[in-house]
C-alpha cells in the first residue's frame, strides 16, 4: 500500500528536523531514507508511524493506502515498525513477543488462540527461528532479536513496514547477511517498506529507490543507479561513497583542472576513486602529476593514496592486475587521468 507524505515540517524547540518534506512510496516498494545523522530521516519515519506529530500547517498530510491518517495516533495506524535496538518485550518469550499485536486486539476482532498460535508459528518459520519460540530476548543474538522484531511487526499484517536503522546495532558480517535476507523477504511478501539508514552500501544494496536526505530536506530521489551515477548535488556525490575533489575552471566550454584551489575558480570536479587512472607517463588532456604515498592492496581492489602537486590527497582504486602491470612503489611519481568526472559549477550570482 502506498505512502504519501505531503509538505511535512517538524521542529523540536529551535531545532528544525524536517523542512517542508514530501515523499511518495509506491505500493510494494522498498525505499531507503539515506542521510547523515541529524538529516531528519528518522523523524520522517516516526511521523509516518504516528510517533511524532508534524508541525501544524495547511496541506501537511500523511496518507497511507489512500487514507489520510494525519490525525490518527500510532495505535490506530497499523504500521509495522522495527527499532534499531529491537525494543523486544524483555519479559516475554519470542512467541509472546510475536503474538503481542494479535493478543491486544479488542475482543471482537481478536483471533482465537489456535489461530494466533498458527500465525506465530508461520512467522517463526519465515524468520527461520522455529526452535526458539520459548526463549527470552536476552537469550538471543542481535541478529536473531532483530528478526523476531521483524516478525512481531509483520504479525499485525501492517499496511506498511517501517525500519529505523534496523541493522545499526549489529556487527558487519551479520549486518550483511541480514540485509540480503531482508531483501529476499521483501521480494517474497512485497510489503511497502521504508528503511532508514546512514550506510550508503546498505541503501544501494537493499532499496528499490533511495531518498537522500540532508539538513532536514530531501536532496535527491532515485534508483540506486541514478543516485550513484547521476548525483544531483555535491552532497549526494560526497555522501554516496568516497570521492576526490579537484578545482578547475571553464575555458571555452571545457573544464580544465587547476593545480590549486586559488587558480581554479568556478568549477568543482568530483571523481570517484575507481574513475581515476594511473599512468607512468603523461597522457590525455589533463594529466595530474602525483606521488604515491601508500598502497593498500588487502581487499577486493587496490587503494592507492597519492599526493598531488600541492600535497592534495588523491585516492585511486584499481584492480590488482593493474597494480602488477604498473609495478607501483612508494614515492614513485605518476600521472593521474580522470576517466569520468562530475562537475558542479559554482554560482556566480551569489
Amino acid at each position, binding site marked *: 500500500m502506498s505512502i504519501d507524505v505531503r509538505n511535512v515540517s517538524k521542529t523540536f524547540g529551535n531545532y528544525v528536523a524536517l523542512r517542508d518534506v514530501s515523499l511518495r512510496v509506491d505500493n510494494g516498494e522498498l525505499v531507503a531514507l539515506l542521510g547523515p545523522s541529524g538529516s531528519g530521516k528518522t523523524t520522517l519515519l516516526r511521523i509516518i508511524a504516528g*510517533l511524532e506529530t508534524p508541525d501544524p500547517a495547511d496541506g501537511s498530510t500523511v496518507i497511507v493506502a489512500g487514507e489520510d491518517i494525519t490525525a490518527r495516533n500510532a495505535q490506530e495506524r497499523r504500521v509495522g515498525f522495527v527499532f534499531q535496538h529491537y525494543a523486544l518485550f524483555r519479559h516475554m518469550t519470542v512467541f509472546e513477543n510475536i503474538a503481542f499485536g494479535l493478543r491486544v486486539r479488542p475482543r471482537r476482532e481478536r483471533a482465537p488462540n489456535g489461530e494466533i498460535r498458527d500465525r506465530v508459528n508461520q512467522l517463526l518459520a519465515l524468520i527461520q527461528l522455529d526452535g526458539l519460540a520459548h526463549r527470552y530476548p536476552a537469550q538471543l543474538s542481535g541478529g536473531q532479536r532483530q528478526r523476531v522484531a521483524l516478525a512481531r511487526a509483520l504479525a499485525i499484517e501492517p499496511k506498511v513496514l517501517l525500519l529505523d536503522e534496523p541493522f545499526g546495532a549489529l556487527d558487519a558480517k551479520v549486518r550483511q547477511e541480514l540485509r540480503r535476507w531482508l531483501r529476499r523477504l521483501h521480494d517474497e511478501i512485497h510489503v511497502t517498506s521504508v528503511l532508514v539508514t546512514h550506510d550508503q552500501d546498505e541503501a544501494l544494496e537493499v532499496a528499490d529507490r533511495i531518498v537522500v536526505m540532508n539538513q532536514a530536506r530531501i536532496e535527491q530521489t532515485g534508483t540506486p543507479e541514478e543516485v550513484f551515477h547521476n548525483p544531483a548535488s555535491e552532497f549526494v556525490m560526497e555522501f554516496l561513497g568516497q570521492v576526490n575533489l579537484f578545482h578547475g575552471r571553464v575555458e571555452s566550454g571545457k573544464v580544465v583542472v587547476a593545480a590549486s584551489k586559488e587558480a581554479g575558480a568556478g568549477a568543482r570536479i568530483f571523481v570517484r576513486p575507481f574513475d581515476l587512472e594511473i599512468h607512468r607517463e603523461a597522457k590525455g588532456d589533463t594529466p595530474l602529476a602525483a606521488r604515491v604515498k601508500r598502497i593498500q592492496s588487502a581487499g577486493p581492489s587496490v587503494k592507492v593514496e597519492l599526493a598531488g602537486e600541492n600535497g592534495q590527497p588523491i585516492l585511486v582504486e584499481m584492480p590488482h592486475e593493474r597494480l602488477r602491470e604498473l609495478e607501483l612503489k612508494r614515492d614513485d611519481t605518476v600521472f593521474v587521468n580522470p576517466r569520468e568526472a562530475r562537475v558542479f559549477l559554482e554560482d556566480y550570482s551569489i
Partner: protein
Amino acid sequence: MTTEPAWMRGLLLGSALLFLGCFLVLPLVTVFTEALRKGVGAYLASIGDPAAVSAIRLTLLAAGIAVPANVVFGVAASWAIARFEFPGRSVLITLIDLPFAVSPVISGLIYVLLFGMQGALGPWLAAHNMQIIFAVPGIVLATVFVTFPFVARELIPLMQEQGSEEEEAALLLGASGWQTFWRVTLPNIKWGLLYGVILCNARAMGEFGAVSVVSGHIRGKTNTVPLHVEILYNEYNFAGAFAVASLLALLALVTLAIKSALEWKIRAETAALRPEGGE
C-alpha cells in the same frame, strides 16, 4: 586483584566486622534478649496488651494507606519524569526529594501549623467537625509525606535507563495506553517497584519524628508502634518496650532479607539484558 598484604586485609576486614558487630548486631541481640528477659509469657502479654494491639493496628493502617498512595504517585511521577520533557520537570524532581531533605520533626510541625487549632486551616476544620492533628488522619498524612520519595526515587533512574521504545512498540502494535501500561511498563519495573515498596513500608511503619509531633500520644488511640515503645520505655517498663520493639526489629530483618533478594534479582535481570551484538 588486590596488592595489599594479608595482615592489612585482615585488619581492614576485622575492623569493619567489629564495627558492624558493635553497632548493629549487638543492639539487635540486646533487643531480643531484653524482650525475653521476663520470659515468653511476659513477652506475649506485652504484645497482646490492648494499647499495644491498638498501636499495631494504627501502624498497619498508616502503612496500608501510605504505601499504596506512594505506589500510585511514584509510578505516575516517575513515568512523567522519565518519559516526557515538560516545564516544571526539575521542580517536580526537587519536590519529590523534599521529604528526604527536611527533618521529619519539621514536617510534622508543618502539619500542626497548617491543620492545628492555632493553624491556618484549624478553625475551619473545627467548624466542620474535622480533626486532623492529634488524630488518625494527621498520622496518616505525616506518614505519607515522609515516605513520599521512596518509590519514585527507585523508579526514575530505572525507567530512564529502559527508555520508551518498548512502550512505543506496544502502541504501534495496536495496544491501548492501558494495555501498554499493564503488559509492558509494569512488568518491566516490577522488581524496582517492589524494592521501593519494601523500603517505603519499612519507613512507614518505623517513622517516629513526624508522627510523634502530630499524634498527641493518646494511648490506645493515636499511638503507633514506635510511639508506644517510647511510652513504655519512659514508664520504665523495659521488658514491654523491648518486646514491642522486637516487632520493629523483626520487620527490619525481613525488610533487609527481601531487599537483598530483590537487589540480586534486579542485578541478574539487568545483566541479562545488556545489549550484545552479533550472532
